[in-house]
C-alpha cells in the first residue's frame, strides 16, 4: 500500500564547499533504497494531476508504480512512450512548476519527488542496458530536416523517426545538443547524459550532421528541395546586451560567450583544453534568470574571490528557478538586488575596472505583473569588477530569418506561427525558442513533440519526394 507519510526523499547532494571546486553534478540522485521509499509515497491517483501538468505528458503514476515493483524495464518503457529524453528531463525540468506542483500530496506531505524518480529510472535503466531506442514504425519514405540539435529539435526528430520517417538533424556547432551542450553547465547536466540520450536517438536511425549552419550556404529553401518538411528549432542564440556605455570593454562577456567557453569548449580545463576564459578576481553577473545563475555558478567554480549577481528588482521577482538561486547562494554567490547597471568603467588599457550602478526601488507592476524597478536619483555607486557577464536575455539568431525571406517573423524576431502552428512557408514548421524567444528546455521539447504530430499530419497529404 502507498504510504505518503514516509519521509520525502531528496537524494544526495555535493556539499557547497566541495562542489565549488569541481564541475561534477551537484545533485547526485536517489539510491535504490531511497527510490523504493519515494516511489511508495505515490498514491497512483486515478486522475493523475501530475501527468496532466507535464508538458510532455509523461505517464507518471504508471512509471512510478512499475518502479515501486522493482520493474525498471516497465518503468522506463512507460516514460519513453512520450519522452525520449528521460535522463535530461529528470534533471533540468522545473518540476515544481509542473508535475510536483500539481501533486495531491503537495500541501500535506510534500509532493512525490517525481523528477528524481524519473532520473533514477533513466539512469538505472541505462546502466542495466534496459534503456533501448524504441523501434520505429514502418518506413514511410518521407524525409524531414530538423534545423538545430537542441531540445526541441531532438524531441521532434525522435518522435518523427518513431513514426517511420527519415530524419536528418543539422547542427552548426561541432557538438550536438544546442543549449544542453553550450548553455547548461555539466554540474546540472553531465555531458555523458547528453551524449547517451543523443546516442539513443541516433540508434533509432536519426542522422546527425555537425558543422552545418543552415542559412547562408544551405538555405531552408534548399532543404525543401531534398526534404519533404523542415522543422526549425534553431533556438534563441542571439545575446541581448545591456546597451550601456563601455559594454565593449575587454572583460565584458555575454552569458552565451562565457557559458560557451566554459561548457562547450571546456575552458575550465585550460590549458588541457585549448580555449581559455579569464574572469579575474571580482566577477559581476548582470541579470536574474537561469542563465545568470548558470553563469554565476560557473564563474564561482573558476575560483575568483567574489561573484556578485546584480539584479534590477528584488529576489521575489527573479525569473530564475528558486532552487537555482538557492544553489547559487549556498555556493557563496552574492546578490545585489534593486541595482541598475549604468556604465562600465574601464582602465587605460580598455579593460573593465568597475560597474557604475544606480540603486532602485520597486514601482508599479508591468504588463506581466512584475513590479518595475525605478531608479533612485543620485544614488550612483561603483562596484569594482575584473569581468562582467551580461545575462539579461536572448533573442532568436537572425540568420534563418535573414536568409529565408518568405518566412514571416514577429516584431520580436521570433518565427510567426498561425493558430494551427503553421509557418508562412508550406512544409516548414518551428518550435522552441525560435518561436518563443527564450523559454525553457521543457517547453522546447513540448513544441518539438507537438510539431512532430503536425508534420506527420501534413505528410499524410503529401507524396514523398523520394530522394
Amino acid at each position: 500500500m502507498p504510504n505518503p507519510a514516509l519521509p520525502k526523499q531528496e537524494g544526495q547532494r555535493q556539499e557547497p564547499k566541495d562542489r565549488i571546486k569541481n564541475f561534477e553534478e551537484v545533485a547526485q540522485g536517489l539510491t535504490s533504497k531511497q527510490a523504493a521509499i519515494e516511489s511508495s509515497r505515490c498514491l497512483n491517483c486515478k486522475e493523475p494531476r501530475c501527468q496532466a501538468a507535464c508538458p510532455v505528458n509523461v505517464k507518471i503514476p504508471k512509471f512510478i508504480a512499475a518502479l515501486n515493483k522493482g520493474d525498471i524495464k516497465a518503468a522506463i518503457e512507460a516514460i519513453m512512450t512520450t519522452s525520449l529524453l528521460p535522463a535530461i528531463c529528470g534533471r533540468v525540468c522545473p518540476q515544481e512548476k509542473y508535475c510536483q506542483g500539481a501533486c495531491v500530496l503537495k500541501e500535506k506531505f510534500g509532493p512525490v519527488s517525481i523528477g528524481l524518480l524519473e532520473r533514477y529510472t533513466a539512469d538505472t535503466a541505462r546502466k542495466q542496458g534496459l534503456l533501448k531506442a524504441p523501434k520505429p514504425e514502418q518506413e514511410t519514405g518521407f524525409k524531414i530536416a530538423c534545423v538545430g540539435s537542441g531540445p526541441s529539435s531532438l524531441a521532434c526528430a525522435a518522435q518523427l523517426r518513431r513514426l517511420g520517417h527519415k530524419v536528418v538533424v543539422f547542427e552548426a556547432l561541432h557538438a550536438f545538443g544546442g543549449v544542453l551542450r553550450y548553455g547548461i553547465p555539466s554540474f546540472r547536466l553531465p555531458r555523458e547524459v547528453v551524449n547517451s540520450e543523443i546516442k539513443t536517438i541516433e540508434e533509432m536511425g536519426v542522422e546527425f550532421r555537425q558543422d552545418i549552419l543552415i542559412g547562408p550556404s544551405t538555405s531552408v529553401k534548399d532543404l525543401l528541395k531534398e526534404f519533404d518538411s523542415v522543422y526549425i528549432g534553431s533556438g534563441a542564440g542571439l545575446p541581448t546586451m545591456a546597451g550601456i556605455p563601455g559594454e565593449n570593454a575587454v572583460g565584458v562577456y555575454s552569458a552565451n560567450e562565457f557559458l560557451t567557453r566554459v561548457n562547450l569548449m571546456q575552458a575550465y580545463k585550460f590549458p588541457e583544453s585549448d580555449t581559455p576564459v579569464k574572469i579575474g578576481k571580482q566577477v559581476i553577473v548582470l541579470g536574474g534568470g537561469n542563465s545568470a545563475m548558470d553563469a554565476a555558478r560557473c564563474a564561482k567554480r573558476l575560483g575568483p574571490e567574489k561573484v556578485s549577481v546584480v539584479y534590477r528588482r528584488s529576489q521575489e521577482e527573479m525569473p530564475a528557478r528558486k532552487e537555482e538561486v538557492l544553489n547559487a547562494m549556498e555556493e557563496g554567490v552574492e546578490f545585489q538586488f534593486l541595482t541598475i547597471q549604468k556604465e562600465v568603467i574601464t582602465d587605460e588599457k580598455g579593460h573593465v575596472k568597475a560597474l557604475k550602478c544606480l540603486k532602485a526601488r520597486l514601482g508599479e507592476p508591468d504588463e506581466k505583473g512584475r513590479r518595475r524597478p525605478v531608479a533612485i536619483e543620485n544614488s550612483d555607486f561603483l562596484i569594482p569588477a575584473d569581468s562582467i557577464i551580461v545575462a539579461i536575455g536572448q533573442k532568436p539568431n537572425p540568420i534563418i530569418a535573414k536568409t529565408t525571406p518568405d518566412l514571416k517573423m514577429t516584431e520580436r524576431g521570433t518565427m510567426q506561427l498561425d493558430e494551427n502552428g503553421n509557418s508562412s512557408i508550406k512544409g516548414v514548421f518551428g518550435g522552441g525558442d525560435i518561436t518563443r524567444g527564450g523559454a525553457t528546455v521543457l517547453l522546447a521539447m513540448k513544441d518539438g513533440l507537438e510539431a512532430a504530430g503536425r508534420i506527420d499530419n501534413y505528410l499524410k497529404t503529401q507524396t514523398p519526394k523520394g530522394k
Partner: protein
Amino acid sequence: MEKNLIVNKKSLSNVVCEFEIYEPLIAASAKAGQFIILRYGELGERVPVTLVDWNEQKGTITAIIQSIGKSTAVFNSLKVGDKFTSLAGPLGTPVEIKNYGTCVVVGGGVGIAEVYPIAKALKQAGNKVISILGARTKDLVILQEKMQQVSDEIIITTDDGSLGQKGLVTDAIKTLHDKGVKIDVGFIIGPIPMMKWTAKLMTQLGIKPYASLNPIMLDGTGMCGCCRVVVNGQTKFACVDGPMFEATNIDFDNLIARTSEYKEQEKESFLKHEKDHKCKIGLH
C-alpha cells in the same frame, strides 16, 4: 573521400602553410570574403580561417595558416591524409563584388592570402586591380605569383627592403596618389595597426576603405558576441555582419584591446604544447 581531409599541403614560409582540404559543400558555395572555423582534437579550440580559394569541380577548398600559437602550430603539423576534427563554413557575409572602377587591394603578411580571393573576384567583375603586398621581409611575401595573375599592377613593400620597395604599404598608396592614379575603393587585410593606418590614409585621400576584421571568435555563427566590434559607433558581430566593414569609422583601438585579452593564456598554452611535444620526441 571524406570531409575535412587534407589532400594537399605545402609550406609557403617557415611559419605559413597552405592546405587543400576536401570539402565539397563549401567548395560549391564559398564566396570571396568568407571564412571557415577549423578545430583539431577533442579539446581543440575553434579557429576562424579565411577561405583563400576553392575548386568546385575537385570539391576542395584552400586555407593558409600562419603558426602563431598552439592551435595554429598543431594545424601546421598536420599532414596530407590527416583530417581536421571539425570544419564549419562558409561563414560570414561575402564582400560585395561589383565594378567599382579601380580598386587597390592591400595585404599585409598572411593577409595577402586573405585578400587574394577578393582581388580575384574584383578582377573577374571587370575592375582594375592594383595589389599592394606588404611584409616585414622577403620570405613573408606569399602568393606573389597568384596575386600577379589577378592584378593589373602589383607593388611589393618590405620593412627591410629585401623585396620590392623598402617601406610600408601606406607609402605605396601615397606614391600612387601622388602619381595621380585615381582609386575608387580599397580593401585592406593585415595586422590591425596596418589596417588602422591604411584606412586612415585612404580616408584622407578620398578612397573608400574596407577592412576585414579579425577579432577573437568562438562559434562564428552569431551566437556569442565575442567578436563584437564597433563600427560607426554601433556594435557589430564580425562573424555574421562582417568580417569586412567600411573602415573609416572602425574603433581599431578597441579591436586591438579585445584581441589582446588572452595573450598570457595563448603563451601558456603554446609553451605547454612545446614542452609536451619535446617530451614525446624524447620518448622515441
